């Protein structure tokens, strides 16, 4: 079985990748850091810089935090509220 991670995209990143979410094979992806590396290989995703934030289940996650197909994962461009 090839399970998939679903990653929600917002603002600039949704524009860059041309979709509000992307699905990524979970194979070889154990952590947030693994996921970011995979996403940066996508066409148009070069701008996902080192300042990118990843949220897992509505909380910001460090690069070493685990991810699984059951998690709600989101890729957040630099915040600009307020």
């Amino acid at each position, binding site marked *: 079985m090839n399970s998939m991670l679903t990653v*929600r995209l*917002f*603002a*600039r990143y949704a*524009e860059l990748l041309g979709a509000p979410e992307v699905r990524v094979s979970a194979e070889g992806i154990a952590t947030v850091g693994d996921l970011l590396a995979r996403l940066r290989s996508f066409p148009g995703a070069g701008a996902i810089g080192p*300042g990118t*934030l990843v*949220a*897992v*289940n*509505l*909380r*910001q*996650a*460090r690069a070493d*935090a685990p991810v699984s197909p059951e998690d709600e994962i*989101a890729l*957040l*461009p*630099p*915040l*600009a*509220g*307020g």
Partner: protein
Amino acid sequence: MTFLSGSPIELGTLLGEVAAPGRGGIASFVGLVRDHHGGRKVSALSYSAYEPMAEEICGQIVSEAETRWPVRVALRHRLGDLAVGEVAVAVAVGGDHREEAFAACRYVIEEVKRRVPIWKRETYVDGTEEWVDPANSGVGIGEWGMGDVR
């Protein structure tokens, strides 16, 4: 939605939420849409959010302030299309002492800017549009994530 609002924000509503006969003062802050940014003339802007997470983080920030100081906090952030001069964000803090009300008000607005997943797309008078990146405006988000991480 509790903290996010698709319609105009009235500070008076927030004042009413935090006023009480025992509270001597209300410190508040409203952030307005400016007509300029980074040397360019802004004609309008649009806020979008990762809504469930933004609601969650706003709730955390309000709880943190109400735990740290003996105050009551109201917070609202606008989403959608805004004209110049409209209220983007509003915070009202009622307390018995003004020092505490001011301190909590400052805390909430700083944390909202630092931690809540909201994005701003500006439209300039020349017709161009751009996602705003505070890091490019000299504001910096370098320290984001030192606090509330998984």
